[in-house]
């Protein structure tokens, strides 16, 4: 059974906000998911789901201070402080699966959150104001890549009357920028300790850094295995593992999940179990995917044999962290993002992914409202044209189902596949 059906069946058809705050919900959910272990194609996905339920339970039951963060903020800090991280953009995905998106988006519109804004944040706003999200004790947000996140999260912090800490990330990667970011990270860390009355635990902080490095190592192993031909995991399945990338670095559970995924991929590779019966083309996926039911991956992978062999979001762009210099190395990690600085850097990273994963073509999902990902595409297209790499810019919305046009999407995908196969 699909997790959302399961959730809905436990929470009742009319999803009540109260249900999210009841320990019974998580107990039942956990039991139900645990009992279904053998139905999961990937045990790592099963593990990830259980971990996510536990984390959601901790947040919704307020088992400690909940700190909201955007998906680009280095979460090692939050795990290192022992608070409960909560990423509203990621939670918006769950809201989509639960079918509460429409009402929440309506609420956001009523609160004047413009329809031109990214729907992840519109949805998060609606869910929060409708009482579906756990209230924050503090909010942290990094300014890099996305303009909406800091604006949206500051508004939420002001609404709840809790402190808001902005990590201001420049575009240069020089020593001055590194110092500037590192000092802020340190400042934010100790401001959180103070405002949330936390007990500073050096060992726990170190552990988060060590966990982050271990997760990175395992993710690199996963990525290396995904470079092999033919692919043994479909892009649709692999996409589910983006979550730890966006909200799980620093947690021991992410080490487990990536480790298990690497083992499973390795085994399947050795057993020559393929993602699809016949791999006809290999694709690279840029940005995120739509999270409501849609036929995109079905059409690409199962019907046409065009496997999404890698997604940009899983790219490991940073060097290992130095436990001796946690703030400096986290600053370096933040500044290493390939989406920062001139577009040429993202183009270069994407071309390197094309080579490493032997991709025959690229699909960029142009999520409406995400200016950071879409506005620079022209330069990417120019570079890809030069190398003769087919490119499709698929317009849509990751969480707002009302923007999904199945007919038009199919036509565009078919046109692209015709060119590719």
């Amino acid at each position, binding site marked *: 059974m699909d997790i959302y059906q399961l959730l809905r069946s436990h929470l009742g058809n009319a999803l009540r906000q109260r249900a999210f705050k009841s320990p019974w919900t998580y107990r039942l959910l956990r039991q139900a998911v645990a009992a279904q272990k053998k139905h999961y194609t990937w045990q790592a996905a099963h593990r990830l789901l259980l971990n996510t339920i536990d984390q959601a339970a901790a947040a919704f039951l307020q088992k400690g201070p909940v700190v909201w963060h955007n998906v680009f903020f280095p979460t090692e800090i939050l795990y290192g402080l022992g608070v409960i991280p909560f990423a509203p953009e990621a939670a918006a995905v769950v809201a989509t699966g639960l079918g509460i998106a429409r009402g929440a988006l309506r609420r956001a519109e009523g*609160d*004047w*959150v*413009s329809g*031109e*804004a*990214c729907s992840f944040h519109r949805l998060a706003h609606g869910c929060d104001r409708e009482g579906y999200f756990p209230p924050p004790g503090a909010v942290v947000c990094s*300014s890099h890549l*996305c*303009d*909406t996140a*800091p*604006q*949206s999260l*500051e*508004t939420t912090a*002001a609404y709840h009357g809790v402190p*808001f800490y*902005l990590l*201001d990330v*420049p*575009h*240069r990667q020089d020593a*001055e*920028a590194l*110092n*500037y970011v590192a*000092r*802020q990270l340190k*400042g934010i860390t100790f401001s959180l300790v103070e405002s949330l009355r936390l007990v500073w635990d050096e060992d726990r902080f170190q552990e988060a850094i060590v966990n982050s490095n271990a997760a990175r190592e395992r993710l690199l192993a996963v990525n290396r295995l995904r470079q092999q031909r033919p692919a043994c995991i479909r892009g649709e399945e692999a996409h589910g593992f983006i979550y730890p990338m966006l909200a799980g670095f620093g947690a021991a559970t992410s080490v487990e999940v990536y480790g298990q995924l690497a083992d499973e991929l390795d085994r399947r590779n050795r057993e020559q179990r393929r993602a699809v019966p016949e791999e006809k083309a290999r694709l690279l996926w840029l940005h995120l995917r739509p999270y409501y039911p849609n036929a995109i991956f079905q059409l690409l992978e199962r019907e046409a044999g065009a496997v999404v062999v890698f997604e940009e979001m899983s790219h490991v762009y940073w060097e290992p962290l130095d436990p001796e210099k946690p703030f400096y190395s986290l600053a370096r990690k933040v500044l290493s993002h390939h989406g920062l600085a*001139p*577009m040429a850097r993202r183009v270069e990273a994407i071309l390197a992914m094309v080579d490493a994963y032997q991709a025959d073509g690229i699909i960029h999902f*142009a999520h*409406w*409202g995400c*200016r*950071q990902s*879409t*506005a*620079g*595409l*022209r*330069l990417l297209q120019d570079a890809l044209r030069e190398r003769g790499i087919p490119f499709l810019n698929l317009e849509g919305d990751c969480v707002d189902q009302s923007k999904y046009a199945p007919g038009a999407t199919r036509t565009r995908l078919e046109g692209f596949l015709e060119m590719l196969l």
Partner: protein
Amino acid sequence: MGWLCHYTPVEIFTALGYTPYRLLGREGNNPRAATYLVGNLCPYVQSCLEAAIKQELPLLAGVVIARSCNAMIHLANVWPHYGAGGKTVVLDVPRRFDEDAVFYFSQNLRRLAAELAPPGERQLNEERLWAAITWWEEQRAAWRELLACRAAWEDPPGGKEIMDGLARWQTPLNPQEADKWETVITRLTRQPRVKTARRPRLLLAGSILPRELITMVEECGGLSVFEDSCNGMRLLLAPAARAEGDPYLYLARLYLGGPPCPRMVGDREKRRQYWAAAVDRFRIQGIIYHAMKFCDAAMYDYIALKVFSEKKGLPLLRLDGDFSGGNRGQWQTRLEAFLEMLGVE
């Protein structure tokens, strides 16, 4: 030397012998820019690129693009490929105002000066920079004085007149023209006032305010007495910041410590205080917010302003604009209804 964002310290240009020329966009659609950027990106940024592509800009030695928001970041990406000729220099501007940010920004400004320096001239002479700082501060002070008189006067110079003046002030074509400004500002201040019917005193806010909006507000019987925009009051910064021995630190503090723009998300409380002071001092009776299409900062700034105006019991009107000059039809009816509510017949 072209520039866009009001967080660009033009003093450095002046000290290096350039005439700072602000790119204020153009009226009309931007079909060519939209092929290099995407359709749902800030129309102001698009219109600056369109002006460059269509060669509507004067000959520029280069352009300094402050990476102040996502749209500007993307503009900085495409400008060297499709924009005007000359050099493209980018400047990172912090989104917070504290000692770390001031110090970091000052380092960026020092580098900016080095990057803009003509070949062979490695370091900008600090005396020249201080002289430029003084020159600009005198000009801004004169403008601030003129704009502040609207707080006390019943019949102050209209917003349109002032905004037109400010636009010309930001776009001189040579140093001589730039020098003449002090007299122009003084003249505007001394101009005899014509008594008009009592008009509601308005605060106009937004990221960058289009000329047509102010014109229309005043044609419909409103009086713009405070323009909280990066081509209005924010452009004039605030009276001199703390004394500094280092001109770059001085500039960093002056610019980051000025009236905060919607992008200064870590500084929103200061923005609320800024509105509160403006409302009291300028005896504001209503607020009009111009929400630039696809400006993420403006979208959320509006929400904060809405909360603020509700607390103050001040009527607020939001008008969305695409900077094309073609919004009259959409705005007129709503504007008339709003002003009627404020007592305009």
